[in-house]
């Protein structure tokens, strides 16, 4: 399937915004997408990776090291020359083994020459890009633990099979899944920065528009891509400007207080919620080209930043989003 242009994705605004925010500030900690199959989750994630400008990485480096990485990890990369390559997008298949994810002993070299060499896994491949896991809720827990741990530390440390390897692995983790088919442990959910809920659009006109666009893309991917290139370029510029602006933006005390009050009111456990909320508001402000972070940004991003951190009560059918919106109404009017 030809990569679908990001700007041609109809609706799903919350998901698109969350992905852009993660692109502006990868330290937010990944995006979890809840929703049914066939709602364009993987299309959107892939499209975003296709949209971002190529990165400079050491030529032939299996880890996609930048110059900073070369300095920090002299052992893995050496001093290869820089060459541009596309932002990596790694699709982690369900049922992937731990070996394939973190990397393992290179069997071939071990057997042929008795050499102890490391064969990089998917984490190495995803460095500086995106790691997408469809149906993450069905992934075995020890793998999810491992992924979140690496995503948080930005580094993959392998100590097994007589290997001792440390290599950079900074990526935006994008998980998706349908909670009705099994849930993620709350501890794991909490580690995701943002979460969004996507539904199949119910509006017939929207669905028709999507069918038409998909058919057009199937028929002639090249001219379709050309037609949307301008729009994609605009988004790309927004992300680039947002990235540049981000370090200059700081959330003021009033916004910090708002964030704390909101987290308290909805019962979001832990400091992580507040921190993510604040960071996400800041990234949104940067993306919008705003001069400062305001309550408006906080309100816009709060559902995504908090909905997966609320304590669930099975008997209370009220959705998390509703509870957050209600709390914001009471607090901020």
């Amino acid at each position: 399937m030809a990569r679908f242009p990001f700007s041609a994705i109809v609706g799903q605004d919350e998901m698109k915004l969350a992905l852009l925010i993660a692109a502006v500030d990868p330290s937010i900690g990944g995006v979890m997408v809840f929703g049914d199959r066939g709602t364009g989750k993987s299309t959107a994630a892939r499209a975003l990776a296709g949209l971002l400008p190529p990165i400079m990485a050491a030529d032939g480096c299996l880890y996609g090291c930048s110059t900073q990485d070369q300095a920090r990890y002299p052992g893995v990369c050496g001093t290869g020359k820089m060459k541009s390559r596309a932002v990596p997008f790694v699709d982690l298949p369900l049922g992937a083994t731990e070996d394939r994810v973190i990397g393992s002993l290179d069997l071939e070299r071990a057997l042929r020459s008795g050499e102890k060499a490391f064969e990089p896994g998917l984490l190495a491949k995803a460095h500086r890009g995106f790691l997408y896991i469809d149906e993450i809720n069905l992934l075995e827990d020890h793998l999810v633990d491992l992924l979140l741990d690496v995503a948080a530390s930005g580094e993959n440390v392998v100590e097994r099979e007589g290997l001792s390897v440390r290599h950079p692995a900074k990526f935006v983790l994008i998980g998706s899944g349908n909670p009705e088919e099994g849930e993620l442990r709350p501890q794991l959910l909490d580690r995701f920065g943002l979460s969004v809920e996507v539904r199949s659009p119910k509006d017939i006109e929207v669905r028709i528009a999507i069918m038409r666009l998909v058919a057009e893309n199937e028929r002639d991917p090249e001219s379709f891509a050309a037609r949307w290139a301008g729009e994609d370029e605009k988004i790309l510029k927004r992300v680039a400007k947002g990235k540049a602006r981000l370090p200059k933006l700081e959330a003021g005390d009033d916004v910090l207080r708002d964030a704390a009050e909101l987290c308290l009111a909805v019962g979001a456990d832990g400091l992580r919620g507040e921190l993510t909320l604040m960071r996400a508001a800041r990234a949104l402000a940067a993306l919008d080209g705003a001069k400062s972070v305001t309550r408006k940004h906080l309100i816009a991003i709060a559902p995504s930043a908090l909905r997966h951190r609320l304590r669930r009560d099975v008997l209370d059918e009220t959705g998390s989003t509703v509870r957050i919106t209600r709390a914001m109404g009471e607090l901020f009017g």
Partner: protein
Amino acid sequence: MSLTDAADPLHDAVLAARLFALSPRTFGGMVLRGGSPARDALVAGLGEVVALRRLPGHVDDERLLGGIDLAASLSAGRPIRQRGLIDEATGGALLAGMAERMDTRIAGRLVQALDDDRAALVLLDDATEPDEAPPVSLTERLAFACELTHSREWRAVELDAAKGTLAAVAPLDDDALRALAATAAALGVDSLRALIFAGEAARGLAALAGRDAASKADLTGAVRLVLAPRATQLPQEEDAAPPEDQPPPPPDGERDEQSDSEQQQQELDLSDILVEAAKAAIPADLLAQLAQGNAPRRSSSSGTGQKRKAATRGKPLGARPGMPRGGAKLALIDSLRAAVPWQAVRRREAGAGNDAAILMRKEDLRIRRFEERAARVTIFAVDASGSAAAARLAEAKGAVELMLGQAYVTRSEVALVAFRGSSAELLLPPTRSLTRARRALAELPGGGGTPLALGLNAAREVAEAVIARGRSAALVILTDGRANIAADGSPGRPQAKLDTEAAARAIMARGIDSLVVDISARPGPEGAELARAMGGRYLALPRADARMIQAAINAVQPIGKAA
């Protein structure tokens, strides 16, 4: 074509197969359910026009995706690459038998290949149990699902070689798109993939018939082939009944030409016609489920955590000879140790040209073994209220004790939750300990009200904890279903009933396997209702003793079977 009976399910399956053959990449593939002679004939016929490559269930990553052929590399002394099955099947399709038992690992690889347009699939689904099904992530990506269990056809199937091409057919117009979208909405088909498949199927049918645009009959056919098998609800009846003179669409996709004056009227009713066509084409067993208001049962394997693979994790034991494939890991040190004594001999054999540090053979390879951990935890929730206690509690205790004895042999675990009075209690966390279980049971008193909701919630929490650890859980609830204590511990039947339903729905939402054993002396409707709300099975055992309960539980829930 040798087919005469248009009503036979094979007829539509043949149509689907012709579409699939027209453009395997566009349609992704097909699921063929039911092991009838018709299916064999269809697969044989399909094999004439599309190169089918069999995909065994035990295929390993190297064979599926390509990689180093370890055995060949060792004997040649240099790395020998092999192409994967997915690449080898390029241009054709992979054929997977017993797809309902397909490993998630393989399914994951195939999903990726489908998403990258690198593969096309034919899945043979031989499921007999309602909760067995091929992985949903795969079937979602295949356009067609054909139910051939009840086909009476047995003659050879000949698929005409495709003449037209999809590219020659014009894109669907807005009316057609709208009608398809409306039909999908009426059938509760949310996935946009399904909708896109339906549009392509309509164009494909036009291509097969040599038309350059999709006609009404093509749309009807697409709805029948793609949308109807995916229905999750029955179309709601319109407020105004459809006009009586509207003839039902011809079931076999026969062309009917409309005069221009009728064109307007036809377009207005197009979605009605499509909905009607879909209704007529919903497979019988799906129809029965939908009519009962039940959503189709999902493959339960997707919801209850990963199955244990004893070969890949657990407590390491020792190494044994074998090839590192299918997730089994090479024990490098043991393999080298096995090869060392032979080096002198092999070097003489290999001659001077071989400069490898160590000469290994396939028979040197050792793989690691791991201890298998408990595959399944069965959680018993026992109603110890006054009403149930009178006669049945002793039997329930006996059944649990028997199960536990069996669990000891089969390495599965048991947990015990009891509810009575105004609380539910985890008497026994998942365990294999016979003595602890016996003691907990013996100390279980009877009497008091029936806080069924509390009992269900407690059992669910235990099950969730079990699933979170990567094991699968099953609930067995022994109760008379007559709840009279609410979730907050206060008495009152109406609230107790509401809370029980909510608790049961929560169990269903988690997809936990459950069984309700009605232990009241005269079973009323409550027990069955409870089972339905949980999406579980129901057994009424008015006069059963411990052994009968155990036999029944085993029959429904084969606990001894390693999952």
